[in-house]
């Protein structure tokens, strides 16, 4: 029987972990921050500014309630309206918008790496650099959300919410988990710290045992490109872009200029060249004894070499 966890070079990992329902809110907050970190810097800055202003508004109101002359929100609203509940809300809106706009301007020029979003942005970048992941997903399944499609189907009575993690990656299982643990340990821990008995991503042995315990074998696995690694696909997409540009700019050049442009093009894309077959895992890839694509082509009959 074929190994169903594998399709060519790609491995299918499916794991379920469990979380006490209240902790699920923590995980949802983590994913909200991750999604926010993917927004343009101005949007991140605006939202950060609004969050900071909301905190300052609460502090100002608390100080005012303690009798200190800190009613800045009402004063801001009084620019437009006579002191009233409506003026307070207008003041609050001005307060939030002002901080948000300042945050957007600051965010356009500077994203501090020490901030929460800055740190998550680094984790996100590291995740992208884990170049062997094709696609991965996290799905929170609340304990009451398991589909029940008929009265005859027994109702679930579960103690925990569930987190499904699915990944499609190249290479060996242990190396994948190890690399995940090395490259994005903070990101891993932030996502799984809410799960029951999560041991942390370091040291690696308890972590490997934990993943093994909650992993489910795949019964059927399909990849449209079983012979291609993530890097093969990324480099093929990059090569297509470069080749399209090269054709557009070089087709009308005189032959000698074309040869020089061709060599420069080869120098740029030589790491993208490969003979990966999308439908087979057995053909060669850059990792399996590929020929070297030389960026300089000796020009026969001219006695010259077209230099890059």
């Amino acid at each position, binding site marked *: 029987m074929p190994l*169903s966890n594998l399709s060519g070079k790609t491995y*299918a990992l499916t794991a379920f*972990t*469990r979380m006490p329902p209240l902790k699920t809110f923590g995980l949802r907050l983590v*994913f909200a921050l991750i999604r926010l970190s993917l927004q343009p810097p101005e949007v991140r800055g605006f939202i950060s500014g609004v969050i900071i202003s909301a905190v300052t508004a609460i502090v100002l109101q608390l100080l005012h309630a303690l009798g200190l002359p800190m009613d800045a929100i009402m004063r801001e609203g009084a620019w437009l309206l006579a002191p009233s509940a409506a003026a307070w809300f207008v003041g609050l809106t001005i307060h939030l918008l002002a901080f948000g706009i300042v945050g957007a301007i600051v965010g356009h020029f500077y994203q501090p790496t020490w901030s929460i979003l800055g740190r998550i942005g680094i984790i996100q970048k590291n995740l992208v650099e884990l170049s062997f*992941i*094709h*696609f991965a997903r996290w*799905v929170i399944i609340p304990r009451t*959300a*398991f*589909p029940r*499609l008929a009265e005859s*189907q*027994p*109702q*679930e*009575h*579960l*103690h*925990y919410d569930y987190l*499904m993690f*699915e990944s499609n990656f190249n290479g060996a299982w242990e190396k994948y988990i190890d690399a995940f643990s090395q490259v994005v340990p903070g990101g891993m821990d932030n996502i799984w710290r809410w799960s029951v*008995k999560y041991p942390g991503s370091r040291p690696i042995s308890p972590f490997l045992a934990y993943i093994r315990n*909650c992993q*489910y074998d795949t*019964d*059927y*696995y399909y*990849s*449209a*490109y079983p012979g*291609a690694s*993530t890097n093969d*696909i*990324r480099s*093929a*997409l990059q090569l*297509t872009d470069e*080749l*399209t540009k090269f054709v557009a700019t070089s*087709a009308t*050049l005189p*032959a000698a200029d*074309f*040869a020089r442009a*061709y060599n420069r093009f080869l120098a740029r894309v030589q790491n993208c*060249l*490969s*003979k*990966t*077959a*999308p439908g087979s895992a057995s053909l060669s890839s850059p990792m399996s004894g590929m020929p070297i694509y*030389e960026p300089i*082509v*000796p*020009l*026969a009959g*001219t006695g010259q070499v*077209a230099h890059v």
Partner: protein
Amino acid sequence: MSDRFGQAYGLTLMSPITGELDVDGTAHDVAIRRELRALNALAESPLVRVATTHLARWVVIDEAPYESEPAKVDHLESKYLLFTSNFDGGTLDDATALNDYLELLRTQIPDVIQRVYSHCVGFPGTSGRIAFQSYMLRCRIPTTFLFGAYGQATQEQVQQSLGLQRTLSDFVLAQQATRPTPDDLKQSFLQFATTAGLIAP
């Protein structure tokens, strides 16, 4: 938009498996595994016919995991058939992209869907579009976060790029072997680019 990363869409379906035995006296989860094992034995996957699919899997979820004391034991009353797929959503809105994909499943691999899902609770068959979509949407669990290394590229673009990568690599090696003059190199390249569809003939 958590079901999306770039243009790619992440679909997650969990279909409860019928609890009783089927007409052969086989448990339905065992029958599903038998069907999926038969798919594994095919030379070509039927999912090739669902041409916008990048990656997909079926997994039978027998029971909840248990992490040892002091965690509480959760026992699943039903077994579930998990289906996940990463497919091209393109520029369509989420609902249209999802409905189009479900329709592709229904029309391109109806035999497979029928054999596998006939063991699931409430499966209406593949003959009616609306009943089929309604069933699948009731089984759908929204994705919390999807990540893709090439979520901006469609399946067709990836296939074409891999093909172009292979043919260009062959071309480069052939040129190195023949050591052409600049004139010959340019002529050969233009011919290659025309054949590859990069230049109009």
